């Protein structure tokens, strides 16, 4: 299952620049709709929420549902006002929280 999530944030940007952020986490995203060999339902286990914050301020957030395929990949844009750190959080159905962060320097 999930090793550490991969994120791509530019190392530096100019003030007010719109940057592209890419994130990808390896996850089965077991939908709960499938059955195993003996016909028993395989319990649902998906990432159900993804959040990105910048210095405590919310940048991007979304809920994930069972129809989303394995290894969810998000790409979104953000405007950076000053140097700081982007924090990323993935919430798993089983209560696990996967976290990652990336600093950015504004010149």
């Amino acid at each position: 299952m999930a090793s550490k999530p991969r994120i791509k944030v530019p190392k530096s940007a100019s003030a007010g620049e719109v940057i592209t952020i890419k994130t990808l986490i390896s996850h089965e995203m077991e939908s709960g709709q499938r059955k195993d060999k003996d016909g028993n339902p395989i319990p649902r286990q998906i990432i159900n929420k993804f959040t990105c914050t910048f210095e405590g301020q919310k940048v991007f957030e979304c809920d994930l549902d069972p129809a989303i395929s394995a290894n969810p990949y998000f790409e979104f844009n953000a405007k950076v006002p000053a140097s700081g750190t982007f924090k990323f959080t993935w919430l798993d159905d089983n209560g696990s929280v996967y976290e990652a962060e990336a600093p950015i320097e504004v010149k």
Partner: protein
Amino acid sequence: MKRLLIAGVVMAAAFAGSGPVMADPVDDTLEIDGTPIVTRAKAPEGHPFDEVYSGWLFREAETRDAERDSIENPGMIAVEDGEVLWNKVEGTAGKSCASCHGDAAESMKGIGASFPKWDADSKKPINVELQINKCRTEQMGAEALAFNKGGQQELTSYIKYQSLGMPVEIDLTQGDMQAWWEKGKDVYYTRMGQLNLACASCHEKAMGKFIRADHLSQGQVNGFPTYRLKSGLTSLHQRFRGCIRDTRAEQPKAFSDELMALETYVTWRGTGLSVETPSVRQ
């Protein structure tokens, strides 16, 4: 009407200008996550080409971009899976790869660029897949992985990925490597199958030509295991076998002497190119 005619003439001129169906390597440079990748290198002495080209230069722009961005490269999922296997304890000795080798980023750096190597025990060249099996049976007390099974490709991808960007250079002075190189050269130039093709027929004589809706590359192996758009993660011996099947010849077994010799020779043909594992190809 006149305008239409002119447009027609312009169109015809445009088509005429496209020239013969050739696809020389593109003029483009590759950098993955800040690591510069050598896609053109001066060929080693005795090589039939003056310059060796990575297969990346023969691919479409979209395919090239998919490799350029490690997040969009689907092969990176295999590398992540490989990392999990690296740390997985298996066998009677209760060890994982990491128990002996620690951090792969340190211990496996350069491995992907220098294999196949000479294995004094078996008196044959050994590649990364077989080295994994040797470790598993001799050190971990685990079963050897069957060809392309049990995460063999993923673990190989993870190990080779640690050498990303490093130029390929194998040591032919060890043991009988030179003799295996000669044997591999024979395989490379031997015509086989109902179509009577040698490796060299396509990848040397017809390099750059357009065949089966594809641009023939030099057939370099610096990006294996590679992510192929048509078949997903593909190991080197799988690719060898696929090529040989397409000549309608009988396919040698993976890791057979014939293919190990070929791997030794073909790896040498890509001397100087960066390791690109996991590369993205058509």
